């Protein structure tokens, strides 16, 4: 019996998509050990979607509600998760490897004195031991590790564990919460929202990325239009060269010194394909490349390539995609 705790993520009182991925990953681990999944939701009030988690395979949904937990606070959240883990015997605790999960999971690991396998893309149980595979060197290699301590802590890379419906009749439980009124010494004063509807390249199901082939920053307008044509499912990424040149924000950089992404569809436009860029996007499910140089390295990893002038191809492609979504 493998008991798995899935630590979920909400923003503004709604579960984030990555939470369903975490329940799905936790379910897979629990099933490998004929065990159970408990989902833990921390929030300032009712979190919408929490009562639906049985659909994705949660046997139990525990909510921890407190005014100080509405927004993520490192110390408040760490305390609640650690207390829950200490109160029960879990074999594994699973987090999302999101901005919040990457902050929270290491703190919980240090507090419990157990290791953390971060950014996991595959997991399972072999001979009673929990193992995890995680990309290293930005995906140029995969490291398979065995977690010897209990509970085993894992954070899951976004977009890898596609949510599957595994209906269970989930029991609901309310956890006791004991956190200071302010949530801790570090206080999140505000969250400055990015442009409305903007998706993060690490989480978007579709990424349209541009490189030096775009010639100047203003031409990224073409990629923004293409991304919009996908109907709110696409984010715009960038190569290191154009980020270093100041054309695009750091947050958009895909590659070994930026973000490693695994979208369903990655469209590389005017990107030649430096090794550190390829490392960051090679786990995409489908890669399309548009480049004028037929010998560009990007075509070696692209499933589908079009050789030619991006300034002619991209606007036409945008038009066609728009028609599909009309």
């Amino acid at each position, binding site marked *: 019996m493998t008991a798995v705790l899935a630590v979920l993520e909400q923003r503004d009182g709604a579960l984030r998509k990555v939470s369903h991925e975490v329940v799905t990953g936790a379910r897979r681990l629990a099933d490998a050990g004929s065990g159970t999944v408990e989902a833990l939701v921390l929030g300032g009030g009712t979190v919408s979607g929490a009562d639906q988690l049985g659909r994705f395979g949660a046997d139990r949904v525990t909510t921890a509600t407190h005014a100080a937990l509405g927004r993520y606070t490192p110390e408040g959240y760490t305390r609640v998760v650690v207390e829950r883990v200490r109160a029960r015997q879990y074999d594994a605790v699973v987090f999302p490897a999101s901005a919040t999960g990457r902050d929270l999971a290491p703190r919980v*690991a*240090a507090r419990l004195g157990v290791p953390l396998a971060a*950014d996991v893309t595959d997991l399972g149980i072999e001979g009673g031991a929990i*193992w995890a595979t995680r990309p290293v060197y930005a995906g140029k*290699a995969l490291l*398979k590790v065995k977690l010897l301590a209990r509970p085993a802590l894992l954070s899951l890379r976004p977009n890898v564990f596609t949510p599957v419906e595994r209906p269970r009749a989930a029991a609901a439980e309310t956890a006791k919460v004991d956190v200071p009124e302010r949530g801790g010494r570090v206080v999140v*004063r505000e969250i400055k*929202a990015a442009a409305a509807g903007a998706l993060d390249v690490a989480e978007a199901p579709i990424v349209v990325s541009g490189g030096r082939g775009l010639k100047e920053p203003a031409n990224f307008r073409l990629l923004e239009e293409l991304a919009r044509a996908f109907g709110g499912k696409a984010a715009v990424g960038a190569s290191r060269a154009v980020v270093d040149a100041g054309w695009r924000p750091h947050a958009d950089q895909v590659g070994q010194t930026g973000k490693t992404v695994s979208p369903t569809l990655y469209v590389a436009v005017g990107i030649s394909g430096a090794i550190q860029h390829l490392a960051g996007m090679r786990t995409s499910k489908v890669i399309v490349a548009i480049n004028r140089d037929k010998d560009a390295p990007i075509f070696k990893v692209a499933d589908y*390539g079009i050789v030619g002038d991006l300034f*002619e191809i991209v606007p036409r492609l945008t038009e066609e995609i728009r028609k599909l979504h009309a």
Partner: protein
Amino acid sequence: MKIAVCIKRVADSETRVKIAADGKALDEAGVKFVLNPYDEFAVEEALRRKEQAGSGEVVVVALGPAAAQETIRAALAMGVDRGVLLQVDRIPADGLVVAQALAAELKDGGYDLILCGKMAIDDYNHQVGPMVAELLGLPCVTSIAHLELQGNTGVAEREVEGGIEVCEFPLPAVLTTDKGLNEPRYPALKGIMAAKKKPLDIKPTALAVGGLEVLAMTPPPDRKDGRIVGEGVAAIPELLRLLREEAKVL
């Protein structure tokens, strides 16, 4: 202001990864090693804070093999005052073991700030900084791209999906640095010469066993051979057909 920066020697991002004979690690033959790029932002920030304060000390601490002395010298050449090498044969895969060794070294240092890169570009662990903070009982903000300090309070900005979190924290604190925080300086020749004479304390370090065992390092699965669908706008209908019918992503 007394600032410690945790740094790491890593394989350069242009490295083509070959796997060592034991099937569990990088084959280091012919690999160029550098100061982890995210740690450069931490070193630069520490130097700027000391320069602004007009006094203080910046110390780098690295856990690594003897060859990591070079990495420490690179930081000393940027202007860091002194270095400490926690010398081990091999950097463990378990980030908590690394954090425990660093925390033991930093514990009684009386630092106002401890800075780390948000992650290392080799193991992508993203965890040593916040673990050090927990072990030392210090407040911590991770992945910061903007920092303001006033007296004993700091305000840092960190990127989260779809926005920027603005965090307030008291000093002393641990911060991990992201790209965008600053533009690291290149060491001047004078700095490189001076670095040779700066103190570098080498401490042989015994590590805890840890709870993470490496089973295997493998190359990523090969991608299916791609194909050029065609040239120019004429290829668009076929591309869309393939994305719809073959790849089923549209």
